[in-house]
């Protein structure tokens, strides 16, 4: 997410917004945003409904057996169609913003 923040102007320049989604409450997300200096929106999906719909649920993956999201990135175009997906199999290894920007430029 740090990478997305660093490249945020390049996303905005292309008319693309970056949105983070997790089961964290608004207050928890706000704390994270402030401490790390993230400026893009963080949305709260406490019941993991949207997370489930995108098929990225990590059932009982959180503290105390809570359902959480597995790490994943989706690029959605203006028509609401998914155009690029990154599904890591390693918590440490996330999408590099450069590859999402390339995918945007190919749209």
């Amino acid at each position, binding site marked *: *997410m740090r990478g*997305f923040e660093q490249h945020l102007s390049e*996303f905005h320049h*292309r*008319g*693309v*917004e*970056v*949105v*983070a*989604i*997790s*089961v*964290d409450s*608004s*207050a928890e*997300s706000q*704390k994270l*945003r402030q401490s790390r200096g993230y400026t893009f*929106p*963080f*949305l*709260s*999906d406490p019941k993991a409904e*949207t*997370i489930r*719909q*995108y*098929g*990225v649920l*990590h*059932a009982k*993956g*959180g503290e105390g057996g809570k359902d*959480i*999201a*597995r*790490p*994943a*990135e*989706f*690029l*959605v*175009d*203006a028509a*609401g*169609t*998914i*155009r*690029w*997906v990154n*599904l*890591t*199999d*390693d*918590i*440490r*290894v996330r999408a590099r913003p450069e590859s999402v920007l390339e995918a*945007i430029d190919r*749209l």
Partner: protein
Amino acid sequence: MKRRMNILNWAGFAVILVAFMSYIPFFALFPSTRDVPWANYLLFLIGGALIAVGVRRAFRDSEHNRGKISGSILAALSVLLFALFVISVTYYSKQVPSAEAALGVSRKAPPFVLADTAGKEISSADLLKDHRGLVLVFYRGYW
């Protein structure tokens, strides 16, 4: 004759500690040292080499060098820390469920209405009205 303190053992162990503890607060911040933690492996290697030389001289030339016992303990602790690091990197960080259920390219993105950090409801339809596209970053959450 007074035996000198075996500084290599302690210096090596200090490097091992840095190798073990620096990943999350530092090296994980940069994709080039995050995806493959080579910088941490390199530090482990340097620390391990220092301890190896230190322990070797403690045993070979124990008349002049201390550190037979402390060096052995530090070496064992170092092996333990290295093993923990490797297990974290190769096993714990891969505890992610399969992505079979995930929506793929050219599928319709399910619309959503979710609260932002100010408690304001944000809909994907509104976001798409104002933008050419959206990058949705799903993350595990911050404990």
